[in-house]
């Protein structure tokens, strides 16, 4: 062969890292501006509150990202959170040991995720449809189980967890690290992580290469369900009640965090650190808007605009312009 030069794009080496740093810079910039603009932002109490709120969305966003990388979507996560608060509240009030109540609730999340996998793989339903169906049914089941009432959790040791801190950092934020590190290893350093990407990029090519596509899809939705159930446990501990209507609209926040964090809704592009940063950027905007007395309706509009701007610039960069 001749030694011709071929027109190949420069590889986007460390693109993920660069994008992550940009998000981090954005987050720090927001924090600096808000610290200067409002006296209360930089207070320990407010920061702790922001971290608590952001943490729960962040954990959901990680699970959501696994699903989106396969080219799917999980609309049910908000409903799973609400449902999980009911389950864990009922179990604890029934006298089940806390560790067992938590474990059982997590298993419920796993079961819901497996059901999504079943619907997609075995029944051939689009992910949007099956998770939309569980979104509405889970809320209904939860309401039936509680007769529409909130359940007050009568265990102080359980509820104390979410309010307490460890070496000055809220326990809820430690949970992000607890989830984030294994999630990072799983996505970027295990073969199952590679399979999530390959299935999202081309399921047929993956199948022909010996990848178990069905199992990969089951895995993604199961992990998403697990993350959501875990957030349900944390939320129940934080507010001290079980209520199936909690976490309304959180699925959209989780998806938004993931997308702001660089996940492509077309699949095969995503990371763990991106959605985490995305979740805290969203939490900061909401928190800052509250402190600045911005009408809460505007917060939603700002979130929408932010999604458009970030995804637009990300698209520009990916196209190499």
């Amino acid at each position, binding site marked *: *062969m*001749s030694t*011709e*030069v*071929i*027109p*190949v*794009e*420069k*590889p*986007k*080496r460390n693109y993920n890292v660069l994008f992550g740093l940009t998000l981090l810079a954005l987050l720090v910039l927001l924090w600096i501006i808000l610290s200067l603009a409002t006296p209360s932002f930089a207070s320990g109490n407010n920061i702790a509150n922001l971290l608590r709120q952001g943490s729960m969305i962040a954990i959901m966003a990680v699970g959501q990202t696994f699903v989106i990388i396969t080219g799917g979507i999980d609309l049910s996560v908000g409903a799973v959170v609400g449902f999980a608060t009911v389950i864990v509240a009922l179990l604890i009030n029934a006298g089940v040991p806390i560790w067992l109540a938590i474990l059982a609730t997590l298993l419920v999340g796993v079961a819901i995720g497996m059901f999504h996998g079943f619907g997609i793989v075995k029944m051939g339903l689009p992910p949007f449809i099956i998770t939309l169906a569980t979104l509405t049914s889970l809320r209904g089941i939860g309401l039936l189980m509680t007769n529409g009432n909130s359940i007050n959790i009568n265990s102080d040791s359980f509820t104390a967890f979410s309010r307490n801190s460890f070496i000055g950092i809220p326990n809820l934020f430690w949970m992000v690290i607890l989830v984030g590190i294994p999630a990072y*290893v799983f996505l970027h*350093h*295990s*073969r199952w992580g*590679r*399979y999530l*990407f*390959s299935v999202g*990029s*081309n399921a*047929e*090519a*993956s*199948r*022909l*290469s*010996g*990848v*178990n596509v069905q199992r990969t899809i089951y895995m993604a939705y199961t992990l998403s369900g697990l993350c959501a159930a875990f957030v349900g446990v944390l939320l129940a501990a934080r507010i001290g009640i079980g209520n199936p209507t909690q976490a309304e609209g959180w699925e959209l926040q989780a998806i938004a965090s993931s997308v702001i964090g660089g996940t492509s809704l077309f699949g*095969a*592009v995503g990371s763990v650190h991106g959605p985490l940063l995305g979740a805290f950027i969203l939490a900061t905007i909401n928190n800052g808007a509250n402190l600045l007395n911005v009408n809460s309706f505007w917060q939603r509009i700002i979130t929408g605009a932010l999604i458009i701007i970030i995804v637009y610039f990300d698209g520009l960069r990916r196209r190499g312009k």
Partner: protein
Amino acid sequence: MISTAQDLHPAPALEPGRTILELRGLEKRYPGTHALKPVNLAFKSGEIHAIVGENGAGKSTLIKLLTGVMPRTSGEVIWEGQPAALATPHEAMALGINAVHQEVVLCRHLTVAANMFLGEENSRFGILQQRAMVKEAQKIIDDLGFDLPAHVTLGDLTIGQQQLIAAARATVRGTKFLIFDEPTAYLTRKEADQLFTLIRRLKGEGVTIIYISHRMEEVFELADRVSVLRDGTLVGTRNIAETNDAELVKMMINRSIEQVYHKEHFTPGAAIIEARNLSGKGFEDISMTVRAGEIVGLYGLIGAGRSEFVTTLYGRHRKSAGQILWQDKPVQVNSEHDAIKLGMALAPESRRDQGLCLNLPVGLNLNLPIYKRISNNLLISSAQEKTQADRQIADLRIKTPTRGALASSLSGGNQQKIVIGKWLAHGAKLFIFDEPTVGVDVGTKAEIYRLFGALLSKGAGIILISSYLPEVYELADTLHVFRRGRLVASHGFRAASHEDVLTQAIG
């Protein structure tokens, strides 16, 4: 506006032989690459001008410049005596320059008629005149001699038929200059003949045809003149009557034709796989054996059941009767996973749809079948991941800046090397290659054939499916001919003539 079959080309036939389009020092640079070095070339009206060259020789760049998809770096394009900017696709189309691409770029979910008039719909008071359009479209199709319905959904047609529709579509827009980019890659012989009839007819009407193909016999069948590109340089232009295969290939690759089909003979060893009276969807009662060190070629027309047969061997589809023996033992192959575990590897027909994860790195694509081996229970060994990928890239001479580049950024030939290369580290015993050289240039073809030899020498067996007769003819130790789902004839290496094999395949 809607045009009828009669006034497809309302302008009087262009005077043949007049220069319609002239390139003066046309040049394209990408950052770091000189994709097209200054080209001077004049195209005459009413000529069929073939352009040949390897992948990456600059053919695609030339098309993109002429159709306004990309701006040129320097040089001039003279259209009918006037300089033309060709800055946008719209401008090119307005002049009468159109292209039919290798991959069909139409809307699969719309009807044939809707596609034919896409962007130029016939409507009255904003309401689409659907029935009228179907009628018009049918008239055009019938007039061209294509036996196809205009009211069906495009996606229900075969790829070949879709390609014919794409060609028909290009002719209804006052086209004076029509570029065909590898139009026959997915066509059956009959469809190709229909296309050639269409092309000759357009030529008769004074339309200039640019015909880009890797298939030499088509170039000699159709073209009046042929230009050869190599490494972005126009090597030369010849009248078709004054040149031959060997000269063109030599101009293209600086290497003689004998070196392309590189056939190594090995003494066949033990049987690797045997099909006994195997039946399934699309094929019936097929028996054959593949032994270590031999290439078994499957020749037939598209739809003859060859792909269905091998995908059933590979566990993609269920067999309905018969037996599969792997190394003389009966086996059940219920999934691709089973097949891969036994030691089979399949490089599928369509690399975009079935072969590659295009928006993922080259390295990941190459390692996909072997991640289990290069990871412990939990983690991937990143050192092994790197060395395995780099070794395949070096061994196969895949032209990529790094293993981290996206598969989509490589040329077709290099993508095909990934599809094949990912199985080499896996160490399979039986390799199934389904149309491995479609849309691949001569140089890459030669490399792929040399790879076959390397696999055979390691004791592997190969099933080679091809619709390109010279390929199976020159490479297969045993050549099986398929016709309508049945195995109708078998030959040894070069044992039957081309004509016999072709006759058996057509029946």
